[in-house]
């Protein structure tokens, strides 16, 4: 394919384009089949989404309640043997409450574990932001590299007995389990059709269980719930909201619902009114959208995730997203821009996406909603 895509979940590289140009006949086949495949897939998922959406709405709540109850039921602490039984995405595990070597690969868990005082033996340090994660500059932690180019040798070197896997490293679950056959691997990833926030709470509580830090976990959950209640309280149920993602000077649209990156699930959490009723197709990076379409939808609120914010931080007060959205001539008549109803996600959001990040985001959102009243 002649397109260069650096999305972490898509794996074409710079070179693939050039190379494919070499095998001329291959290009056409590749390009055509890839696109045909994409379309067919997209159609299928669209149909699926449409049919499952209503279903999900009615069933997800009860399902989560059931799941939560189940998890609690199995988490019985066995003080004498020093193990707890925890249920993760792959079943139930007996986990030692005093693990000697812990590997953490899950972005959404770093800060929680830091708060619990867990010292990992190995982690993907390249995926951490030094200003957010204390682990990032800890020399005693073996580096597992980036998810695109992991250094899994260090999994062996760390001799782990507990591995908290997840998010970007989910794809290496199999490899890691083969490299560390004796270790317990726990994964708490948001399940399909489940509420992302509920899943974050499940993860936090489960981690609290594993590391005997139930109180700290409960504290985190409580903070999140407090901010959620504030948003719920302040949102009028009518104002239209649109999620945007900015990167490299371009604006993408984040679809409401479980498919929209980071912001999408929030629509369901607070019953936000989407400004544009359109199924998105790109789950992780949003769909290309023109300023005209945003202006036509005329949202009352904009929730903006700025992917470049963290990297451009060196320039004081420089916000690429604000420049793109607020200073856009075409968007100046949009209600959200006119009234300043724009909430930017925490600048490290793209690297964290954890319970703390959502707490901060909801707090900002609640502040903005309250101020606008």
């Amino acid at each position, binding site marked *: 394919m002649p397109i*260069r895509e650096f999305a*972490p979940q898509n794996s074409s590289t710079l070179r693939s384009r050039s*190379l494919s*140009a070499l095998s001329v006949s291959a290009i056409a086949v590749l390009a055509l089949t890839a696109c045909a495949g994409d379309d067919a897939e997209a159609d299928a998922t669209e149909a699926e989404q449409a049919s499952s959406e209503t279903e999900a709405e009615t069933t997800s709540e009860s399902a989560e309640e059931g799941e939560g109850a189940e998890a609690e039921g199995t988490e019985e602490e066995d003080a004498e043997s020093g193990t707890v039984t925890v249920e993760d995405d792959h079943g139930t595990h007996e986990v030692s409450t005093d693990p000697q070597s812990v590997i953490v690969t899950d972005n959404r868990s770093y800060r929680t574990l830091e708060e619990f005082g867990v010292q990992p033996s190995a982690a993907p340090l390249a995926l951490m932001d030094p200003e957010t994660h204390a682990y990032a500059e800890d020399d005693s932690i073996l580096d597992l590299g980036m998810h695109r180019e992991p250094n899994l040798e260090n999994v062996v070197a760390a001799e782990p007995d507990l591995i908290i896997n997840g998010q970007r490293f989910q794809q290496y679950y199999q490899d890691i389990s083969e490299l560390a056959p004796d270790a317990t691997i726990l994964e708490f990833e948001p399940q399909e059709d489940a509420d992302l926030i509920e899943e974050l709470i499940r993860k936090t509580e489960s981690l609290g269980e594993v590391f005997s830090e139930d109180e700290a976990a409960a504290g985190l959950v409580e903070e999140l719930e407090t901010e959620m209640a504030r948003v719920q309280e302040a949102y009028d149920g009518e104002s239209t909201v649109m999620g945007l993602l900015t990167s490299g000077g371009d604006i993408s649209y984040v679809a409401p619902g479980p498919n929209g990156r980071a912001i999408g699930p929030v629509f369901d959490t607070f019953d936000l009114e989407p400004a544009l009723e359109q199924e998105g197709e790109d789950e992780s990076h949003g769909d*290309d959208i023109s300023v005209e379409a945003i202006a036509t939808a005329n949202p009352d609120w904009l929730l903006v995730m700025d992917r*470049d914010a963290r990297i451009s931080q060196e320039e004081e007060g420089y916000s690429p997203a604000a420049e793109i959205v607020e200073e856009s001539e075409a968007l100046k008549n949009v209600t959200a821009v006119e009234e300043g109803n724009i909430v930017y996600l925490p600048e490290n959001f793209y690297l964290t996406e954890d319970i703390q990040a959502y707490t901060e985001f909801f707090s900002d959102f609640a502040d903005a909603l309250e101020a606008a009243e």
Partner: protein
Amino acid sequence: MPDHRFTPLRGQRGAASGAIPSGVAEPVQPRRSPRRQRLFTPALLIGILITCGLLVLSLTTGQYEVFSEDGFWMFGITRVPRTIALVLAGASMAMCGLIMQLLTQNRFVEPTTTGTTEWAGLGLILVLWLFPGASMLARMGGAVTMAFIGTIIFFLFLQRVTLKSSLIVPIIGIMLGAVVSSFTTYIALMTDHLQTLGIWFAGSFTGVVEGRYELMWLVLVVTVLVFITADQFTVAGLGRDMATNVGLNYTAVLFMGTAMVAVATGVTATVVGVLPFLGLIVPNVVSLFRGDDLRSNLPWVCLVGIATVTVCDLIGRTIRAPFEIPVGLVLGVVGAVVFVGLLLRQRRRGGLVT
């Protein structure tokens, strides 16, 4: 050098074309005398009309209701800039392909197969790495500079290669491009700019609105310059020896062509992104139908370039409205098909690898 560029050329043209090294794919159509070939033929006028029609279509296609209260205002800040960018990018990238094909005497060369776009990408990433938050102009400067250096390196490399079959030249370019792009990827990876880079290179007109396209006007300068200096490129296209024989300062022309290609590629890469295959298919399609006279082909290359980009962009922005598909993706699909078609056609005539 400019004094005696026309007379000897026109006289020797028929004989000269026979002297093109065998590596060059032969012109498909028999050559008519270019002197009498008028620029503004009825066919060209029809072509202009069709292209204008496409541009009008581009102006009226979009999400915002143009005939509403402030529709005209929106029209001015999104549709007009976008259409101007389409025209400039389409014309200049198609002509870049043409210039590079003449300078390398190879039909399969254009900025994406000579590594020029990869070098532009390296320039972009270097600027962003060393000066985060650099202005659009600074980024563009980096892209243009590196594109220029890269293309010069390509030519220097090419001069040391004795075997210049039609496949070797693009392979060298692709090879160099791959090496450069791996550097770019490494820097991007280390500085967390990988995704930004990917978005730049997707080649999309979605973000081209007032305030974000003005740099594209620079490309117009290149386009005009190409028109002015077209004859020299035609002579250079005969090869270094032949061009020097008829009194052309080959190195100067090479340098000038490289600079033009670098500016056009760098600016387009910064504002729009990569437009794959455009420089490859447009000049080839034009010479398929019209033979190889640069001067009378130039308007055609411009028109076909503009029309191709406009059609691809129109497809990209209507197929999934209100969302858009990057023009580079559409162009890649269309371009690949045309490219294979061209190859098959040449093979049928028995002229691909000689």
